């Protein structure tokens, strides 16, 4: 770790102001950033901790039935309190281990957009809205590829709004070492159609499997996916699996998610 300063603002406004300074970086739960700092792979001058901002924490359901989760809410809290959206709570409860879940936050995960993270698939499959200090961004516009999002410099995820689906399920096939998603598929069925989002598999990060969505929208059963497959062209290939294997797993995990969603 290199030397850095740290500030702990108690409001979003103060955090935004602090992030305006040169080489300042937001610190959520630190589950990616702290190991990166320890390995001296980043050298921010100032860390702006978002952990003390009360207005960014908590889970509630709005009058419109949308589940609202503060950007600074930990996975552990989501797992325990997002009871209105069981598939999302289950996803949060299966991220990492208890230590990770007690520190890591939904806002941090979405802002980082790790291609193997779980949350991006939930946000994309749910058609969630990412609310920042300046604007609202639809999930479809938010994820711009591996570790890349629509967020501007210094922009903070204050809240994430999830329309609650009729049925949903997340299936994660774990990479054996890290237990991140080698392939994770989130399926969500809404009155106006089904959305399927895939994480872990693609070089472009989380993506929607639109062919599966179309098939499932007309017949929400795993048999609707028979004979369907995603292309392996843009899939990640590494020591844990070939592109073809990941493409295959997308099909398997999607079927399982549909079956489990019931």
């Amino acid at each position, binding site marked *: 770790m290199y030397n850095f300063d740290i500030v702990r603002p108690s409001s979003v406004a103060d955090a935004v102001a602090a992030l305006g300074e040169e080489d300042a970086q937001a610190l959520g739960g630190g589950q990616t950033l702290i190991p990166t700092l320890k390995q001296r792979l980043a050298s921010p001058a100032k860390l702006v901790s978002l952990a003390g901002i009360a207005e960014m924490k908590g889970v509630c359901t709005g009058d419109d039935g949308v589940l609202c989760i503060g950007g600074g809410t930990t996975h552990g809290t989501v797992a325990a309190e997002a009871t209105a959206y069981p598939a999302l709570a289950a996803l949060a409860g299966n991220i990492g281990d208890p230590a990770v879940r007690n520190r890591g936050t939904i806002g941090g995960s979405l802002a980082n957009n790790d291609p193997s993270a779980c949350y991006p698939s939930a946000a994309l499959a749910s058609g969630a809205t990412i609310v920042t200090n300046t604007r609202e961004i639809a999930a479809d516009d938010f994820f711009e590829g591996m570790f890349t999002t629509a967020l501007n410099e210094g922009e903070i995820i204050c809240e994430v709004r999830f329309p609650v689906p009729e049925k949903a399920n997340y299936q994660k096939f774990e990479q054996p070492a890290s237990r991140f998603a080698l392939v994770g598929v989130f399926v969500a069925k809404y009155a106006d159609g089904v959305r399927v989002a895939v994480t872990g598999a693609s070089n472009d990060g989380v993506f929607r499997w639109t062919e599966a969505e179309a098939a499932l929208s007309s017949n929400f059963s795993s048999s609707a996916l028979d004979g369907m497959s995603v292309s392996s062209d843009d899939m990640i290939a590494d020591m844990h*699996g070939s592109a073809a294997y990941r493409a295959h797993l997308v099909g398997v995990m999607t079927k399982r998610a549909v079956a489990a969603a019931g």
Partner: protein
Amino acid sequence: MPKDHGIGASSKRREDVRFLTGTGNYTDDINVHGQLYVHFLRSDVAHGRINKVDTAAASEMPGVVRVFTGADFEGVGSIPCGWQVTDRFGEVMQEPPHPVLAQGKVRHVGDPIAAVVAESLSQARDAAEAIEFDIDELPAVVDMKEALKDGAPKVHDDLKNNLCYDWGFVEENREAVDKAIKEAAHVTTLELVNNRLVANPMEPRVAVGDYNRANDESTLYTTSQNPHVIRLLMGAFVLGIPEHKLRVIAPDVGGGFGTKIFHYAEEAFCTFAARQLARPVKWTSTRSEAFMSDAHGRDHVTKIELALDKDNNFTALRTDTYANMGAYLSTFAPSVPTWLHGTLMAGNYKTPLIYVNVKAVFTNTVPVDAYRGAGRPEATFQLERVVDKAARELGVDPIALRRQNFISEFPYATPVAVEYDTGDYTATMDKLEEIADIAGFAARRKESEAKGKLRGLGVNCYIEACGIAPSNLVGQLGARAGLYESATVRVNATGSISVMTGSHSHGQGHETAFPQVVAEMLGIPEDQIDIVHGDTARTPMGMGTYGSRSLAVGGSAMVRATEKIINKAKKIASHLMEASEADIELKDGQFTVAGTDKSVAWGDVTLAAYVPHNYPLEDIEPGLEETAFYDPSNFTYPSGAYACEVELDPDTGKVTVERFSAADDFGNIINPMIVSGQVHGGIAQGVGQALMENCVYDENGQLLSASYMDYAMPRADDVPFYSVDHSCVTPCTHNPLGVKGCGEAGAIGSPPAVINAVVDALQSGGHDVTHIDMPASPSRVWAAMNG
């Protein structure tokens, strides 16, 4: 009724009180007044020529005391290799130098280029970034067969090529084996890889060097399984410090698995720098450094052929193995693929003709050396896989084929130069079939298939050679060390005892099990006895703990020393009771005169030894302290039979271990609970090797599996509850306790059981798969299923 103390009792591990409450004293807990910290600048290329290492700017950085480079070690010895193998042509192996810091070239990712010593670790790291170095990257060799081709880049410019040795064993059998294979009714051939592993003890390596100018004494605190070996190798061969001026202390050590046997450059560096600077110097490995500086394990590529006659009797075995040495020869590296591997190729079977060829190869990778089992897992894996494949090819039951070929008469001289003293392989197989419920497998397979899963059963046997070993024999085989063990039993005036052992406990529970033996012999409570180990200043010269040798060799030394204590104590007792020494009996801590009601307590005798007012001073010396050195007359040969049942998800290729059963013959058992724990841990490591762990380099020598993000360690939910049994006992015939050793068995016996089960599962699903290399990860299994 199980015993509640002494030999055979499951006494609770007394060391766990401190291990489980955070009050252990590990090397990193040791901080010496005024200590400095070292950070090693390590090569990020696998192979390169060092043109320049400029430390001027780094030396001016805040807190920096000194920056060392390879040039500072020109008058210093090379990190030595402790075993010299002679090849099949009678030539000694090629043995390159191994400088403390790289000189001229870097030869693997992680090879240390420079070392910064500073007041704080952060300052040392900052300054390391200011070192200006110019390294011309050279083509690297990673694949062993590529490394042996003409024109391959040479890891060591001064050697003829990258071949360390070409070993044949038993060379005289070569032609007869070739002939038998040619004439066999059936030959089963298998090519396989024994995957490279990183040991990953929970505690990373640490070294603290200290130097006392007043008396010219150096002290090294280090995470070692054998502090005396480190003192000898480092003092005599590297730094030139005589033993009476060098103390090596290995306090609580958090797991070793072999990788803490070896003498490492960082130990020599900290000791050397402390003398140069007259201040203590500390190094604590990060986990990332451990991946690229701890000796790795395994990494063999083998072709094995098993010949059978028309009645399915094994007639000959031939193996052709490439063994990766890495970039330098680690302490015992040459012995692992040879004497710890070739000698075990008979396994449990009476195959009359065996020939083993091993080519040891230098590559631009981290040095490879002993890892839990060391050579024996590699031997067992090949043999038990090829036997299983043979059974499938011949359409016979794998268990029946094994039983048919078991060695059944002991002692048995194998065609690979060792003599098994005892064993009963039929008994352990019978026991296995019972505890594994082999008969119920078919029903369990049906249940799995009803869930859409494939289920496989894998069975194998193993034999290992432990208690390494007779010094005169290993000397002939190239060992540059004796392999006896030592113990001093110091009886205190009031009867309590300190046992100073040359063995070292780094998780094995010696502090509990060793007192059980002495307590049994003397008839006093175990809590009257403490074990002292891990400090060259407090223990007699000993060889340490590896190769499952501590009880068989170190325990035997302790028995011999205790016998001397008993003999002397009886003399004292006979004097106190005015009886003939021949009539004195010791039972339950009381000396009695046979046939009378006269007795004196243990404590009366020990007090008399140190307060010799009424004492036969003209016949015997006062005091009660004895030392023994024990050199075994043979290896010990634990054996057993293992069974694994896996469930395989055909959609994803994921394999889960549903049942694992182990029937072991460890000879006599001192503490059954500790033995079970050793087997449990070994199986976890074996399952890890078989299904998860893999150390992977790319073709440029970059380490791809350099952290836990990519190196898959087994976790608690990756293994089932085991069924282990060690009630089959054929006591070792040549050591006083009749013990064989249990530390490595689990890691030796389990990988073939797992892979045999995976192959069985795949074949049950109609997949034409006859072998799958370890680790049988989901992606590999899926690839095997899908051509």
